[in-house]
């Protein structure tokens, strides 16, 4: 099955080879890396300045570890592309986006319009995360 790529960023997509997290030791200059669900996103902290692309693999949509990985990377200041790859379904897009993903490579193609609609699902949000949205508690108290 072919992957479609939907990017919510204006910069050009990275063309650097994507290095599996497990092989990073041999590629200390890597610009792009792929995390599997069990990989420790915190181990990328020393590399966050040099990375343009972090792919987070979702072999099955039911494995939610990648949400934590993404949010952790953004919390530590990563600003490059954060791409959810694999079993990425439209009904999870708003959560991906709230955790910091700004690109999607779903195995089953999703349209850009469907992504935009999914992100707009919630008129407001209850939590402060890494997407810059103002939580409801802050709206209430100015």
């Amino acid at each position, binding site marked *: 099955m072919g992957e479609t790529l939907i990017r919510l960023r204006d910069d050009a997509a990275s063309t650097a080879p994507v290095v599996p997290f497990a092989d990073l030791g041999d590629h200390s200059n890597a610009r792009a890396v792929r995390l599997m*669900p069990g990989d420790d996103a915190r181990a990328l902290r020393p590399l966050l300045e040099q990375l343009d692309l972090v792919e987070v693999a979702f072999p099955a*949509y*039911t*494995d*939610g*570890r990648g*949400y*934590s*990985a993404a*949010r952790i990377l953004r*919390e530590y200041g990563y600003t490059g592309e954060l791409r959810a790859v694999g079993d990425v*379904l439209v*009904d*999870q897009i*708003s*959560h*991906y*986006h*709230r*955790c910091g993903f700004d690109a999607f490579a779903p195995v089953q193609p999703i349209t850009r319009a469907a992504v935009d609609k999914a992100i707009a*699902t*919630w*008129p*407001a*949000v*209850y*939590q*402060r*995360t890494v997407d810059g949205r103002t*939580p*409801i*508690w802050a*709206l*209430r*108290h100015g």
Partner: protein
Amino acid sequence: MYLYDTHDQAMVDARVTEFTDQVARRLAGTLTEEQFRPLRLKNGLYLQLHAYMLRVAIPYGTLNARQMHMLGDIADRYDRGYAHFTTRQNIQYNWIKLDQSPALLADLATVGMHAIQTSGNCIRNTTADHFAGAAADEIADPRPYAELLRQWSTFHPEFDYLPRKFKVAIIGSDIDRAAMKLHDIGIQVVNDPAGQIALRVYVGGGMGRTPMIAPVIREFLPPLQMISYLEAALRVYNRYGRRDNKYKARIKILVHEIGADEYRRQVEEEFAHILTLGLEPPPAEFARIAAQFADPAFDPAAPDAIDLSDPDFAVWVAQNVHAHKAPGYAIVTISLKPVGGIPGDASADQIRLMAAIAQEHSFDELRVTHAQNIVLPHVKKADLYAIWQQLDAAGLATANLDLIGDIIACPGLDYCSLANARSIPLAQKISERFADGDRQRNLRELKLKISGCINACGHHHAGHIGILGVDRKGVENYQLLLGGCEGADTSIGTITGPGFSEDGVVDAIERATNVYLDRREGDERFVDTFRRVGMAPFKDAIYG
């Protein structure tokens, strides 16, 4: 109690829109059942043996008369005129049609209700002490914290695909009425050594296949760091909880395998990081919520005396009425366990009657208990007799709270696709065997709990007498457990030995109660005698 503002309501309305679209896509075939399943589950919609079952959230078991009335109307409109209150303080409808479910949720939304996250591997509806804000023994009202938790956990983007479901309970008194230590996270509002309000956090309790009592992970948490701390506790679980085996995926297994000390260390490390991120709602938000849980306008002149000249009423008051913190007031528990009835079931008319009584006599407030009963939290003692008469006329005045007839039972194989055995007919038989009120009262507090499968929705591990239904070579079989308890002295029951047939287990229970009557000393309850004398005499009597 807390009323939704425009923000809360907008979120509920958005959920109805989203779910309506998902059902339409399912009915049109663009969503497969496999893709639809987790989506409907996050709206509490299960496909059961005979129909869809919808589980509606009752946040921390608290609701007002208008909401309760709507629950009755929904039973008439979309079900067969009745509904089932659950051990998680929620309500379930058993005969729902998929194409009608969006309309049902839209009706619920008109009274600020929903089915958000009542299933799925996410943070479920938070449960709480059903006497919160009314009990005479309370340190602080846990409901403002529970409401903070409701908002924080609603559509939390990081924790929607946890290794397994996640249940939080919160209490504010030393008497645990919420089985708090048997939850993934249990929180107790306490006073710290300096006399300040703090939260004691227990993590890693649970029932199911591997029952565990949660250890204390944080002794005294500043209350307005609760959200940050739970972000940390859940993140450690989401990252490191087991996903290779669904029977080992609950947080209790993680805490058990790495140990409470190591889990605590990891959480503290994550917590220190999260505190730098500004995720905690401000004190003003807590104050806004807490103000909505302020005491209602109790009448300071309410008389304290109750006329107990009607003997049936006197029995009910002694059994089903608890001390209230305000003079002249009482807490009423309405038993949904009539002799021979289905535990937790109520008809649409009964639900609407309870709503009407709450509106007139309980400051427009009701609670659902984890023991599947309904509480009127703030009732004038002077009104008790009139209330009792109304309840009695509707079959709602059974005076058996915490007695052997007050049985907790899951829906079992009559409805549930997970069940191995029926729970309801067994509960009915036990209830009939011990129908005599004097006999029940002579047995004192005796909590009997039935689960129709190992998932333990009927809390059998925590029953003074617990029953677990199993499938033995295609035949329903019932294991008997003794010595479980859910209160401050939480313990997990022990299996007596080989299982029984449906009738056999009723006989075995009767023999166990006879041992108790023979051996008890002083004020001992069944569970106290069991703890003192041990299993041997019970086993001898049951199998001898």
